C-alpha cells in the first residue's frame, strides 16, 4: 500500500465512528432505490409467473382482487362462495377441465387448501416423500409448510377452529400427513392440501358420528318418533377420520350446493377459453377473471407508489450528498493544521490533495460494497417478505 493510501486508511480507522456514519449514509442512498426496484421487480415476476400459469379463475361476484389472491396465493381474504354445481356445469361444457378450490381454514396460520387431485397435475406438483391423498381426512403438505410446522409423513396436522368462542361450532380435525411435496417455489410450498370433502368436513358440513340406533348412542338420543331420531349436542362426533369410523362420515344436503371459494377452469384450447369467457361475461352471480389482468392492476398500483417513493428517495439522496459534501469540506477546513504539518514535512500540495481524495474514494468504495451486500440480501430474502406484506 502506497503512503497516501496507508495514511488515508489509518485516518479512517482513527476516526472510525465518523467514517462509519459516512459509509452508512452513502450506502443507504445507493441501496434504497436499487433495493426497492429489485424487490418490486422480483415480486412482480413471481406474481406474474403464478398468474400466467393460471389462465382463468371463476368465483362468486365480489372483489376480483380478493378472489384472485385467495385462489392463487391462498391469502386470508375470504371471497364469497359459489356452489359446487358450477364444477359439473363447467365440466359438462366440454370446454374446460375445472379444478375446484375451497381455501378457508388454517392450521397454525398455514392455509388448508381443499381441492381435487387434478390440482396437483395442473400445477405439476411432485411428491418428495410419502404418497398422494387417498382417503378422507388425509393431508399432503408443501415442503415449506412441512418445515414451518415441523411435521413429516406419519405426523398429524390439526385444523384451527375459526373462533375460540364458537364452542358449538366447527371441531378441529386431526389429519395424518401422508405426503410432502417437492419444492415448487410457489405458494403451493406454503399450503396444506386436502381433499375437497375433507375441507367440507373441517367446515362441519360433513361429519361422522355414532350410529344413533346403536345402544352406545342412547344417552344422546332425546326422542324417537317412528323413523325420526332427535339427538342432543352430546352425540359423539369424530375429530379424526380413521378406518374404524370412516364409514360414518356423511354430508348433509345436496352435493351440488356445497361451497367453493373458486374454480380454476383450465381451457382445453384457446378457442375454448374465449367461448367459456363469453358464457360467463354477463353472469349475474359469478365472475370469470383472467388473473394476469388483475395482478397487472395490482402491480400498476405498486409501481405507481414505487415511483413516488423513488422521487422522495432522490430528494433524500440529494440532501445526503450535500451533507456528505459538507462533512468533507468542514473536515478539510478543520484539518488545516494537519495539512500545514504535512507541508512542513516536505509534502507537496498534490500529495496532500491525494490524501484527502483517497479518504473520499475509500468511503465510497466501502459504501458501494455495503450497498451491494444489502442488494444481495434483498434478492435472497426480500421477495417473500414483501409478498407476506402485500398478501
Amino acid at each position, binding site marked *: 500500500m502506497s503512503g497516501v493510501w496507508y495514511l488515508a486508511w489509518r485516518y479512517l480507522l482513527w476516526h472510525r465512528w465518523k467514517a462509519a456514519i459516512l459509509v452508512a449514509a452513502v450506502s443507504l442512498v*445507493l441501496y434504497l432505490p*436499487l433495493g426497492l426496484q*429489485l424487490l418490486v421487480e*422480483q415480486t412482480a*415476476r*413471481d406474481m406474474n*409467473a*403464478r398468474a400466467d*400459469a393460471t389462465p382463468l379463475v371463476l368465483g362468486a361476484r365480489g372483489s376480483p382482487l380478493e378472489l384472485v389472491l385467495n385462489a392463487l396465493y391462498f391469502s386470508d381474504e375470504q371471497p364469497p362462495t359459489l356452489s359446487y354445481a358450477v*364444477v359439473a356445469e363447467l*365440466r359438462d361444457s366440454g370446454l374446460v*377441465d*375445472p*379444478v*375446484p378450490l375451497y381455501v378457508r381454514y388454517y392450521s397454525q396460520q398455514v392455509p388448508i387448501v381443499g381441492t*381435487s*387431485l*387434478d390440482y396437483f*397435475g395442473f400445477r*405439476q*406438483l*411432485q411428491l418428495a416423500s410419502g*404418497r*398422494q391423498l*387417498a*382417503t*378422507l381426512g*388425509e393431508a399432503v403438505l408443501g415442503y415449506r409448510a412441512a418445515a414451518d410446522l415441523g411435521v413429516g409423513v406419519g405426523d398429524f396436522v390439526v385444523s384451527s377452529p375459526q373462533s375460540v368462542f364458537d364452542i*358449538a361450532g366447527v371441531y378441529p380435525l386431526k389429519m395424518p400427513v401422508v405426503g410432502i411435496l417437492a419444492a*415448487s*417455489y410457489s405458494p403451493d410450498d406454503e399450503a396444506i392440501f386436502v*381433499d375437497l*370433502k375433507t375441507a367440507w368436513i373441517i367446515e362441519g358440513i360433513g361429519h361422522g*358420528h355414532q350410529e*344413533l*340406533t346403536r345402544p352406545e348412542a342412547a344417552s*344422546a338420543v332425546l326422542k*324417537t318418533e317412528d*323413523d*325420526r*331420531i*332427535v*339427538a*342432543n*349436542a352430546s352425540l359423539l362426533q369424530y375429530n379424526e377420520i380413521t378406518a374404524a369410523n*370412516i*364409514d360414518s*362420515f356423511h354430508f*348433509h*344436503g345436496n352435493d351440488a350446493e356445497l361451497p367453493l371459494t373458486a374454480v380454476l377452469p383450465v381451457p382445453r384450447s384457446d378457442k375454448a377459453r374465449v367461448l367459456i369467457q363469453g358464457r360467463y361475461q354477463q353472469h349475474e352471480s359469478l365472475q370469470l377473471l383472467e388473473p394476469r389482468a388483475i395482478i397487472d392492476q395490482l402491480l400498476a398500483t405498486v409501481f405507481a407508489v414505487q415511483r413516488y417513493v423513488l422521487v422522495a428517495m432522490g430528494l433524500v439522496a440529494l440532501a445526503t450528498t450535500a451533507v456528505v459534501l459538507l462533512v468533507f469540506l468542514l473536515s478539510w477546513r478543520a484539518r488545516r493544521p494537519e495539512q500545514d504539518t504535512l507541508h512542513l514535512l516536505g509534502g507537496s500540495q498534490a500529495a496532500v490533495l491525494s490524501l484527502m481524495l483517497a479518504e473520499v*474514494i475509500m468511503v*465510497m*468504495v466501502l459504501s*458501494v*460494497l455495503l450497498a*451491494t451486500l444489502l*442488494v*444481495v440480501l434483498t*434478492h*435472497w430474502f426480500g421477495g417473500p417478505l414483501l409478498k407476506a406484506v402485500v398478501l
Partner: protein
Amino acid sequence: MRLLQSILGFALLSLVACGQGTGTQTPSNSDGAAKRPLQISTVNYPLAWAAQQLAGEGAEVHFPAPADVDPAFWQPDLDTVAAYQQADLIVLNGANYARWRARVTLPDNRLVDTSSAFTDQLISVDSSPVHTHGPDGDHSHGELAFTVWLDLSLYAQQLQSIAAALAVLLPERARGIAAGSERLSGQLMAMDSELIKLGQQLDGEPVLYSHPVYQYFGRRYRLNGRALHWEPDQSPSERDWSALGELLKQHPATLMIWEDKPLAATRDRLTQLGVEVVVFRPLGNRPPHADFESAMSANIARLRAAAVEVP
C-alpha cells in the same frame, strides 16, 4: 464515479445470474415416456365389459374387485386406490354405487358418471331413520338402488356415456367407438325388447326376488315383485320361511328370481310351496365362463323358460 458504476453494474449482473437460478421455476414436463394404451378403471363388471367392447385394443380396462365379492360393497385397499388414481378414465356407475368412492380421493376430471344422464330415473330405497343432532335440521343417510344396468335401456345410456368419454380420449378411434356404441346399443335394446315381452307375458303375476337388487329390472319390465334378503349359499332360517309364508298370503308368487343358484334344500322347499326358482344373475361381478352379453342372454333364456310355467 466510473469505478462506482462498474461495481454497481457487476453487482446487478450477478443478481440477474442468481435470479435465473433461484426465481420461480416451472418443473419440466416429463412427457418422454413411451405412449401407453389408455388406462380405464371401472367399478363393476358391466361397465368394464362395455368399456372394453367400445375401446377394443385402444385401451386396457381394469376392474380390480376380486371375483368373489359384490363390487357394490367392496372396499379397495390403498394400492388399489392409487391404481385408480393413475387411470386415464375412471368409469363410475353412479347412483351411489361403490360407496368407497365417496371416501377416497380420485381425480374428478377423469371420472365419468354413467348415470348422470338419468338421475331423475334413479330409484330411492331410503330406509335409514331421519335424525337431528345440530343446527342443520333433519337429515337421513339415504340410499339409492344401484343396479341400473338391469334396466337394459339405462345400461344402453351408460354405454353411450362411456362412448362419449372414450371419443374425447381416443379421437383417432372415434368413428369405431361410435359404430361400436351403435352396435352394442342395438344388441342391448333387442334384449330389452325381449324382456319387455316377458314382462307382458307375466302380466303382473306376483314374483319374488331373493335380494333387493332388481328395482330397475322390475320397474322397466313391469314385474310385480317383492324382495327378500336371502343368500343363495345360505339356508334360510325357520323365521325366514315363516316370513315367506306370511308374504305369500299377501303376494302369492309362483316364481322367485335368484342372484345365483340357491342350495338344493332351499330350492326343494320352495318347490313344495309352489314357488319355482329362476336364476337371473345381476352380473355386478364377472360371470364364470361367460361375458355380459352371453350371461344376460342366458338370464333371459332361463326367465323365458320359467315364464312359460307360470299359470
